């Protein structure tokens, strides 16, 4: 048996936790693992959810550094219009 869990498994466990944890519930975040660091990117709906991304990953992977590169989804108020011919 290997001493350390392969990074690819760590990455998928992290993605699964971010999807399933009610504090985040995001399925489309990108997670990469390099050495002792976990990088996560993508968009979330609020600052609260962005902070929760870090919390969830730190709880899951306490031995790894978490670099949270997610951003908060910003939608404009003025709609685009298109005529469908």
């Amino acid at each position, binding site marked *: 048996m290997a001493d350390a869990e392969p990074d690819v498994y760590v990455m998928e466990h992290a993605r699964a936790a971010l999807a399933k944890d*009610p504090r985040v*519930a995001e399925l*489309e975040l990108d997670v990469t693992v390099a050495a002792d660091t976990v990088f996560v990117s993508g*968009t979330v*709906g*609020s600052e*609260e*959810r962005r902070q929760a991304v870090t919390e969830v990953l730190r709880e899951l992977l306490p031995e790894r550094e978490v670099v949270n590169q997610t951003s908060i*989804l*910003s*939608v*404009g*108020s*003025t*709609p*685009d*219009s*298109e*005529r*469908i*011919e």
Partner: protein
Amino acid sequence: MIRVAAAGDLHFGTDSAGSLREPLADLPSHADILLLAGDLTRRGEPAEARVLADELGGLEIPVVSVLGNHDYESDREEEITKILTEAGVTVLEGESTVVDVHGERLGVAGLKGFGGGFAGACASDFGEPEMKAFIRHTQDGARRLSAALEDLEGVDVRVALLHYSPIRETLQGEPLEIFPFLGSYLLAEAVDDPGADLVLHGHAHRGVEKGVTPGGVRVRNVAQHVIGRAYNIYELNCEPDC
């Protein structure tokens, strides 16, 4: 002309109160109807749906919606539907509705849809029961979508409202490996046979807005992540005289 406002993937949480207030304030001056392409909530919790219902309640134009996969996460989709319905939202699942817009008839056929993939690389109704159940769910939905569109025969404008994508074109930007979980060509086939003026969907946050079915029906991915706005407006001509 009928002006359709559309958005998908709102992902409302209990922390989302007020987030649509400003964009919705002007909506009746921009659009005749609001269509929502599913993933209304983050986890399908009734409390999340209530926040959205409060936001939509009192809107002066009709609101029609389908649910998305997030709205099923807590196995409380029936409660979600009830809460939204009580707020005046028409929630469709394999059904259609007709809305009168300035004397013209807009028909909307709605379905969550499901996955399976696209021509040349799609799942088959073959093998293990779980695999058959997966593809049969999509097949069943496609049949109901086609029937719902057929029920709209004679209306002035027909729109198909989905959560999952009917074409691969609007998924460009998503990882190729997950295309089978983002939509199915069966949904496009279900639209092309009876015909429609427009298909709206969400689900693919990293996709692109515009595409067309093999039969020539315009498709728009209205996930907020894609359109970058609270909603977009699509103006549909109802020939020859509106």
